[in-house]
């Protein structure tokens, strides 16, 4: 990497941040009105764009292309896990959780299981999920900033944290809520337009690079081509299926995905919003592998050899590197880089604010100081936000894996804990607080045991890969919850009546 400040992306980034603050300020009053009472079919598309913009993080924007660049077909486990999960969410619990009427994971858990211990467990899990998720986003910001400013990764991380916090504070102080549809539009255009130009430069069909990357893969020398096209070069069928399944149940159990179901006026609109949301997310995922494929194509035609370590180091910014390699206009390269940063910053701000809220309300107020007033709580939340941001920074200095892999661990935790708690809470009236608490504890152990003890017990790591532990973990947790619930007293009748009459009625 050259060590110099790249001016174009730097100025563009500054402009984009200022413009987004200004747009937020100007549309502030308009935004607070929320959705009108009647939502037409165009409204469903709007809801879908909001779902997609909430979903798109550095893992989607930078991570997937990187995994595809390194591991070819294996990356489809990520793509399918992160789209198929929405089917699971919609089909199994979208409507029911909405009818239940609780907006956050801890709220649902306390109301359903009638236990503040279960509430605290779920709050702590939700905070850990946010932390892990943020580490991946920080890595993305660090890499892009390092590229942009020509500084090393650690310095870039600090700079990125400062920029994120500044953005968070100004946006917070100005009470700016961002326009989700606009955000989605900016992200998807800044991803697809440079990709089209890359395809054109390499001589492939530029109108649909989502299809023409296949030809680019086939044009590679036969041995390289079959490496990336063949499904089991970089992982066994078990690893592929376990990863895909883990990401699916994780998606269905992810707190910030679930709460999306409440920002729309009614159940039916929320359901139809998912169809559009999936389409909008699909646009990104259809395109992402193309970056990896075109990067391989360029390397092969230009005769450039990358040793494995360099390839690994470049993978997470391969989206930007590909654009640079094929000689894309500097502005287009910058647009890609800024898209990645925006995706990461918006995800981080959302997750940190939610995490800080959980600390101040679910833990501090509910557990430590029930007499705290609102101003006091706000102060705690602000402090918690700063602590969380610094904690993430410390972990991100030595990132434990690729962006997509780190994110996958957060999904594994959600799939091993919150998914079973939601699923059984909705679909089995007999599930009680003891079952839920036992389930969350077992799920947490299953998620972290292979990470903490994997080096001592290689078999454990093979059976429960850190990114993919929920294929075995989720069923084990569900079984634990059933057994423990059976052995302990049933939940109160009033709650079961509520489930029958409110949650499971048309």
């Amino acid at each position, binding site marked *: 990497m050259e060590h110099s400040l790249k001016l174009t992306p730097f100025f563009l980034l500054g402009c984009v941040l200022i413009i987004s603050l200004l747009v937020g300020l100007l549309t502030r009053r308009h935004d607070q009105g929320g959705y009108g009472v009647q939502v037409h079919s165009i409204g469903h598309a709007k809801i879908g764009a909001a779902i997609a913009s909430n979903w798109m993080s550095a893992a989607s924007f930078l991570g997937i292309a990187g995994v595809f660049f390194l591991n070819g077909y294996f990356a489809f486990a990520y793509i399918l896990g992160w789209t198929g999960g929405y089917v699971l969410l919609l089909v199994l619990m979208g409507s029911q959780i909405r009818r239940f009427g609780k907006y956050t994971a801890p709220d649902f858990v306390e109301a359903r299981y009638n236990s503040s211990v279960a509430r605290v467990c779920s709050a702590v899990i939700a905070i850990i999920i946010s932390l892990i998720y943020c580490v991946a986003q920080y890595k993305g910001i660090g890499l892009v900033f390092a590229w942009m400013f020509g500084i090393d990764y650690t310095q870039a991380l600090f700079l990125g944290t400062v920029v994120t916090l500044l953005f968070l504070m100004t946006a917070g102080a100005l009470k700016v809520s961002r326009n989700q549809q606009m955000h989605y539009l900016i992200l998807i255009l800044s991803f697809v337009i440079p990709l089209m130009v890359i395809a054109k430069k390499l001589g492939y069909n530029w109108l649909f690079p989502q299809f023409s990357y296949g030809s680019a893969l086939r044009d590679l020398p036969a041995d390289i081509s079959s*490496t990336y096209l063949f499904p089991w070069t970089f992982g066994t069928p078990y690893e592929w299926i376990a990863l895909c399944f883990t990401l699916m149940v994780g998606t269905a159990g992810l707190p910030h995905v679930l709460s999306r179901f409440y920002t729309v006026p009614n159940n039916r609109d929320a359901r*139809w919003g*998912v*169809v559009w949301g999936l389409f909008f997310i699909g646009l990104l995922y259809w395109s992402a592998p193309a970056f990896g494929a075109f990067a391989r194509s360029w390397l092969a035609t230009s005769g450039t050899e990358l040793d494995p370590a360099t390839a690994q180091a470049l993978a997470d910014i391969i989206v930007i590197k590909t654009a640079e390699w094929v000689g894309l206009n500097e502005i287009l390269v910058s647009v890609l880089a800024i898209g990645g940063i925006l995706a990461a910053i918006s995800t981080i701000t959302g997750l940190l604010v939610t995490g800080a809220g959980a600390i101040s309300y679910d833990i501090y107020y509910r557990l430590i100081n029930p007499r705290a007033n609102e101003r006091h709580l706000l102060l705690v939340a602000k402090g918690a936000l700063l602590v969380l941001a610094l904690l993430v920074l410390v972990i991100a200095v030595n990132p434990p894996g690729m962006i997509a892999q780190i994110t996958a661990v957060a999904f594994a935790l959600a799939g091993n804990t919150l998914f079973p708690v939601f699923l059984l809470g909705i679909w089995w009236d007999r599930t009680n607080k003891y079952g839920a608490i036992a389930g969350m504890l077992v799920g947490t152990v299953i998620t972290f045991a292979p990470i903490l003890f994997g080096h001592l017990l290689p078999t454990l790591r093979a059976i429960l890969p850190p990114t993919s532990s929920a294929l075995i973990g989720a069923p084990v947790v569900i079984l634990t919850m059933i057994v423990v619930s059976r052995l302990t007293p049933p939940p109160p009748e009033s709650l079961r009546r509520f489930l*029958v009459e409110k949650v499971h009625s048309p």
Partner: protein
Amino acid sequence: MPQPDGQAQPSREELRINFFRPRAGFMRKEVRIIWFTLAAWAIMTFGMPIHMALTHSDPVRTMTEVPYVFGIPAYFWFSGQFLILWFIFLCFVFNVLIDWLTSSYRRRR
């Protein structure tokens, strides 16, 4: 369905919610739709990798043996492109069915 004249004490059966033994009426039909969608989701998502794992083990031979679509092996196109469309289609069908079920039960009430 809760009885409109719900004065009497409900039996245990009346408060039962179990995905594998859904109550007659709305819930049973809803669960049927869910099973149908889940089956279509699972078979398509995991069927292809399982099929590929059972039938193909050699990278180079696989490339010459498998059928091609749009210039890439069909299974590759299926996983990378088609399945996302399939998921969207499944959500669409599920919503249509649930809309129909909900409105028919609301009218009956």
